[in-house]
């Protein structure tokens, strides 16, 4: 890995947002917003450059301080990382634009909201750092950066229910990261290295490794609100401000999933067992059904959306069992792996776009109506057709109807289910879709229904609605470059040679 071309972009991707965020602290509320928005645009531009660079050069690295691993820390920007960075940039820049107009429309309420900008840039830097990190301990620091900023953003509205939710979220986040760190300690103790690449080569199966895998997975499951550790998510995501809810559900929870995917595929491949995969898949399956059902039962729009996140994250967990074959089954080639992880990446992207759009639309509705009881959607189709469209399109992607990103993810997931022969996951996927259709169309049905009472209706700036609609469309547009994107991803360590070499070693599937 040391031989890869070096680039200074990874360092700038982390450093620059933090520098801009620090700079913005010197300004008062209006200035913070200006600097913050400029910083977002700049960071998104950098992400674009990074994407182009990786597309041309392949994976690049940045050896921090010139000290090579295992002593030093190495930033690795491979296709997987840059796809996540790009997704964060795309979704992030839309949410930034939304936030800019959103806070301007509510300027009179509270100048405190201007803290959004530095916190969001810190969060963004943390996410970039997480995607680029190639070091177990550095990953811990980045998830802490993300955790603190995310909770701080979640409580920004200052309402008491958001404070309760925020504290719960924070305690869960700290517990999760401490559990993760415990696993890191044990791995360091047994190998003397923290570098993911080196660990993938030297980590040996054993009781300690299995235990480390267990606590790390536990910690990350708490962080990504995997069932049954999802309890903190719905209150935290539903009580935050609209742009914050969008950020939290679209991007923040994906960070933990990213680490989980990387670690399972690159580091722990050798000690994964069939039963372990099935267990995490079961958690995902229960989350899909339970979350969708809970979403269906809620009466508040933001709670519906938040519970839906629990379900959609469940799909992400369901890819893990598909990566591990049953004992005794030997795969001739690595083809069967591809659909599963493709499903994961696409589920992440589709959910990011769709859920961000969904939460922004909810914010628009709250702005217009003052509350988010689902009855407030009545007659939305004629009052705010654009927002209705956004909800419809984002909802369709969540359900997984063609030709959305969500459809592509479910297609690949089902394909993985068929190819791996683990057919018992198929009914869960379909039931999840069906239940999702239930609550999405419940919302749409209300949007088309006539208004019952004459509630006050404040007009909402069109710019806000356009942003939400564009994000929703984004969840469809991501399908078009699918073939190129998958080829691109296959050249990354995690999914190309990484998984295959583990499989050739014979460890995959037969433990």
């Amino acid at each position, binding site marked *: 890995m040391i031989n890869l071309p070096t680039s200074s972009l990874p360092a700038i991707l982390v450093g620059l947002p933090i520098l801009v965020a620090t700079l913005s602290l010197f300004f008062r509320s209006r200035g913070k917003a200006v600097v913050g928005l400029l910083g977002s645009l700049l960071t998104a531009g950098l992400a674009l450059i990074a994407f182009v660079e990786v597309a041309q050069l392949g994976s690049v690295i940045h050896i921090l301080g010139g000290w090579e691993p295992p002593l030093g820390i190495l930033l690795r920007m491979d296709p997987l990382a840059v796809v996540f960075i790009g997704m964060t940039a795309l979704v992030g820049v839309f949410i930034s634009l939304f936030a800019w107009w959103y806070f301007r429309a509510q300027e009179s309420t509270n100048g405190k909201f201007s803290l959004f900008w530095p916190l969001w840039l810190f969060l963004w830097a943390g996410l970039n750092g997480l995607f680029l990190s190639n070091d177990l301990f550095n990953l811990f620091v980045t998830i802490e950066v993300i955790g603190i900023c995310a909770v701080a953003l979640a409580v920004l509205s200052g309402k008491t229910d958001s404070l309760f939710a925020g504290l719960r979220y924070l305690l869960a986040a700290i517990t999760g990261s401490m559990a993760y760190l415990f696993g890191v300690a044990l791995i360091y103790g047994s190998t003397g290295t923290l570098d993911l690449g080196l660990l993938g080569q030297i980590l040996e199966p054993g009781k300690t490794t299995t235990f480390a895998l267990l606590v790390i997975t536990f910690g990350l499951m708490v962080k990504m609100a995997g069932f049954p550790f999802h309890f903190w998510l719905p209150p935290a995501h539903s009580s935050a401000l609209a742009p914050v809810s969008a950020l939290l559900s679209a991007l923040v929870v994906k960070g933990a999933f990213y680490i989980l995917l990387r670690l399972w595929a690159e580091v722990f491949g050798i000690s994964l067992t069939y039963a372990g995969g099935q267990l995490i898949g079961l958690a995902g399956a229960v989350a899909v059904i339970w979350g969708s059902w809970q979403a269906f039962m809620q009466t508040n729009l933001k709670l519906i959306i938040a519970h839906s996140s629990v379900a959609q994250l469940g799909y992400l967990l369901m890819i893990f069992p598909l990566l591990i074959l049953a004992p005794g089954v030997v795969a001739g080639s690595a083809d069967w792996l591809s659909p599963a992880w493709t499903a994961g990446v696409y589920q992440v992207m589709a959910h990011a776009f769709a859920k961000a759009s969904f939460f922004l639309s909810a914010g628009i509705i709250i702005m217009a109506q003052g509350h988010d009881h689902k009855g407030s959607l009545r007659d939305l189709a004629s009052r705010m057709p654009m927002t209705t469209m956004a909800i419809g399109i984002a909802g369709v992607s969540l359900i997984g109807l063609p030709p959305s990103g969500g459809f592509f993810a479910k297609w690949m997931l089902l394909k993985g289910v068929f190819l791996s022969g683990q057919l018992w996951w198929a009914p869960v996927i*379909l039931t999840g879709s*069906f239940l999702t259709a239930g609550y999405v*169309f419940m919302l749409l049905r209300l949007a088309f229904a006539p208004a019952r009472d004459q509630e006050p209706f404040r007009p909402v700036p069109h710019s806000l609605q356009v942003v939400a609609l564009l994000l929703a469309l984004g969840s469809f547009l991501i*399908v078009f470059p699918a073939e190129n994107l998958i080829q691109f991803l296959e050249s990354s360590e995690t999914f190309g040679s990484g998984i295959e070499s583990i499989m050739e070693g014979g460890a995959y599937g037969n433990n």
Partner: protein
Amino acid sequence: METTSILPLLILGSSFIPGTLILLLREDQSSQRTFLNIFGAVAKVSLIALVFAGYMRGEDYTFVFSLAPGLNFTLRVDLLGLFFATLSAVLWLITTLYAIGYLEGGRHRRRFFAFFSYCITASTGIALSGDVVTFFIFYEFLTLSTYPLVVHLGTDKAVNAGRTYLWYTIGGGTILFLGVVGLSVIAGPIHFGQTEIIASLISENATQLAILFFLMLAGLAVKAAIFPLHSWLPISMVAPAPVSALLHAVAVVKAGAFGIIRLVYDVYGIETAGYMNLLTPLAVFAAFTIIYGSVRALFQDDFKRRLAFSTVSQLSYIALGVAITGVLSSTGAIVHLVHQGIMKITMFFAAGIVAETYGFYKISEMNGIGRRMPLTMGAFAIAVFGMIGLPPVAGFISKWYLGLGAIETGSYWVVLVLLGSSALNAAYFLPIIYRAWFCEPVQELVPRRRSGRLETQALMLIPVVVTGLLSLAAGVFAAVAGSPLSIAREIAERLYLL
């Protein structure tokens, strides 16, 4: 296969782009909207005519966009697809005119016409899909684009109907999805017409293939309204008349029927399907649905509901024709796709005109209306005769071929079903004719909408007359080259030559 043409894409774009533009217009820009509508509809018909001509010269129009390995977006022109696309495009043009008249002054017309255009995009997409995945994509797109049309009125009844409609179609779509993914895993990407792929697999994967067949069939049967999956159809009658007309004649139900044709003829192949005994259950369910729908129709007083149950019954003729092996029955099934379409759309147009002009929704109110609206009810009468199967109207041709096909294969019970169904058709349709033409009006007939000397607005009247005449012409000139029958026959013959 290697040639790539964007013409099929243009055909889709000719309704998709106007639809999107309409969505961007303001509600009050009605002349721009009308222009876009008509321009799109005419463009679509012309493009299809162009492609049809080219196809007859032996040109190949294929558009492939690869989404992922094994997941292609394929548009491909073949005769069956063109046949269905032509039907959709022509009827869309006519229905657009009708809808402009029907909805004049109504609310949310921007939304209506936009989704109307999307709906027809989905329908032509289904016609031109070159493989199962693309078909599925448009199949689901159709569900979504028709939903706002079903709930268009926004009343609680409409909204509830929309919910029922969605539960059925999304459920069907989900099952179809499972089948499609399973098929793509077992057999890889299958273009329509590549029946040899499945044929080569039946020795190994017979059970899986049979299960997948029935999964997909069940998914398609929802839209084709085959018993017991038909209940959504009568309920979604609350939609405005042009929607019901298009839904019943072309878009939704035909998508299901067309899908069944594709599944049996172009994916599994008739021989394979017959060899695996997959078709008998389909025949049984279709036959039962034919009788069941007719019986239910007998007891409906609501005009549109009676028509809806009639649709349930008539659609299964297609499924039945598919289920019986043989050139003649296949011809009957394929040609009924068109014949049922033009006849049923005539009926719904007529129902819409009666409802809009006089406010009558029930059959019992319609006494003497024929004398006030001779053209409308005349067209309606032609369609009725067709439905019953009287020569020389189009419906007779379909039934004739279906019957001949049944006799050819020795399935005499099918002939009984056809005869029984015809009798029932007569029993529930003729009373309408009788009331309309031969009963005295109960009260003074005062039209709610007037337009000069005509019995109703020209934009509504012309479509109904045109489709009425078309149903007559399709029967009378059935033997002429280029008629629906001749094309259907050619399709069927090609199938069996393979």
